[in-house]
Structure formats: structure tokens, C-alpha cells
């Protein structure tokens, strides 16, 4: 659902940076905690890109697993699911280090 709005933003950002050049590939980083469904985002991207310089571009979507640092013991844990919990001491008070990303990293274009 929110994939459509995200796709719209991605196409807008790519269009601004492309400045009229044809875009062939858009590299996007998406943290696991963003709850983005890749197939829905790819579908939305193709749809929204139609009729823009981004049309036909490939969406290279890299998902970033969640990583948290325990505020109690300082140990970092991979966080495959909920609850987000420290693997060392079992604490729940974690600072999210990775997994909340949502940004356009780069574009490939034809010069």
C-alpha cells in the first residue's frame, strides 16, 4: 500500500537528478524495518515511471537487515524479527543501527 507513494517519490527523485537524461537503473536501499514489499514496490515503480525519463529503468532494490545496539550491554545484534531483542543479555532497549534506511543511492543513466 505505502509502496505506491514510495514509488512515486523514487521516480520524482530520479527524475530530478537525471535532468532529462534517460535513466536505466535506480539503486534503492530499503531497511527491513520499513515493511516494504519488494514486488509491490517494483510494480508501483514501473507503473509510476510510465511516460517519464525513468520509464523502462530497472529498480535495483537492496534490502538491509535490521541491526540493533543494546543500550544496556552495548552488544550489537542482528534482528530477524519481533521482538527486537539483544542476543547477549535479552534486553529490549535497542538503538537501531541499521534497518530503517529508505533512500535512493544512485542512478545509472545514458549520457
Amino acid at each position, binding site marked *: 500500500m505505502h509502496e505506491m507513494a514510495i514509488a512515486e*517519490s523514487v521516480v520524482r527523485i530520479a527524475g530530478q537528478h537525471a535532468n532529462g537524461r534517460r535513466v536505466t537503473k535506480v539503486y534503492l536501499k530499503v531497511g527491513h524495518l520499513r*515493511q516494504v514489499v519488494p514486488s509491490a514496490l517494483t510494480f508501483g515503480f514501473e507503473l509510476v515511471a510510465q511516460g517519464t525519463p525513468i520509464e523502462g529503468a530497472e529498480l535495483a532494490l537492496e534490502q538491509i537487515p535490521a541491526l540493533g545496539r543494546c543500550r544496556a550491554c552495548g552488544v550489537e545484534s542482528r534482528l530477524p524479527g519481533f521482538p527486537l531483542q539483544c542476543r547477549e543479555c535479552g534486553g529490549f532497549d535497542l538503538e537501531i543501527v541499521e534497518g530503517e534506511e529508505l533512500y535512493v543511492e544512485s542512478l545509472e543513466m545514458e549520457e
Partner: protein
Amino acid sequence: MHRTAVKQIVMEGVLDANDALAQANRERFDGAGNYVINMMSSPGAGKTALLERTLERLRGKLCLGILEGDVQTTLDADRLARFHVPLVQVNTDPGFGGECHLDANMVRSGLSELPLPEIDVLVIENVGNLVCPAEFKVGEDVRVMVYSVTEGEEKPLKYPLMFRSADLVLVNKVDLLEHLDFDLEQFLGNLDAVNPGVERILTSARTGQGVEEWCSWLEHRRG
């Protein structure tokens, strides 16, 4: 014609544009002295009914303003009109891709219809949806989620994005608990699994249970 592929670094947050507009809204709210609540839930959880009880309770104490977000219709705004409070309806229908939530720009578009300096607390009633509204800041001070006990115990685990972003969860329709298989303890356990220790108040818009506690929370948080 020979074409060369070039790579350009962008490093731009997908929601940066929205976040900048949300920040501008926030500055406008701060300037007018508004405490702003972003109220979110599934469709039918009881946001509007709770707002009706809230308006009854706080009448004469605080001036509430309402920004009502819906995909279509003014039905919710019509329900609240009898309270004669500043109220604006924002329909999200024209925005392609933006129909399922309010974003900062849609909220901004509604603000010119509201007398902000007269308002103590502005409640932004978001579009009923358990996913999308959580991604879009609108300039709020606090996020209040309404969750009804008819929605099942497992939803915090299925929709962690919104449950994680809430500052307060109003667990609504508790008058129905005796008729349901809903396991309240299990639900609260799931809630703590995604948002440990988040504040929660059991409410019933129908009987008025918890409405006083919610209004006290609101007055206290506003400071």
C-alpha cells in the same frame, strides 16, 4: 549513436521532501501554540467516536481543532460539526498514490481553513489504514493509535511499523470484551514485543470508559 552509461550518486531519502514539509508544518504549529496529535488506526477502530467523547469532555476546557482526513466523503466531519469546533476536511482522493494516508503537504493544504491561534490542541484524524500513515510525518507532536479489540491479538506483529511509531495506544471497544474471544493479555504482550512499554489506555467510546484517563493524558502531555 554511441551511448555511454554513467553512474550518479544521489543519496537522497525517499521521504526527505515530506519530512521537510512536516518540519515547516511543525514550525507553524509551534508558532501558533498548537499541540498536535496524529491519530491513526484501521478503518472502523473508533477514532471519530472517541473524538466525539473527547470533544464532549474537554468542551470549555481546551479548544480542540480537527483536521479530518478521508479518502472520500465528509461523513466524519459531518458527525463532528455539531460540536462547533474549528474543523476542516481533507479528502485524499485526487492524489495518485497518496489516497491511503495523509502526508505533510495534504495537511498543509488544510491549515489555511483553520484559525490556528485559537486552537490549543489540533487532532489530525488520519485516513483509516494500518500501514501507510505511519511512514508520513505531518508535523505532529505525538502519535496516538486507536486499536479496537475486534481486530485480533496478532496485529502488532503483522503491522509493526505503525505500532512501533505510536506514543500512546488507545485500546478501544473494551465493552465488547465479554462477547469476544479476544485475549487482552496476549494482545498487550504482542504490543510490548514491538513497542516495549508503550503507554496504553483501555477505552470504550460507547460506555465512556477510559475517556477521562485519555483526556487527562492529553492535558498532561500538552503541559
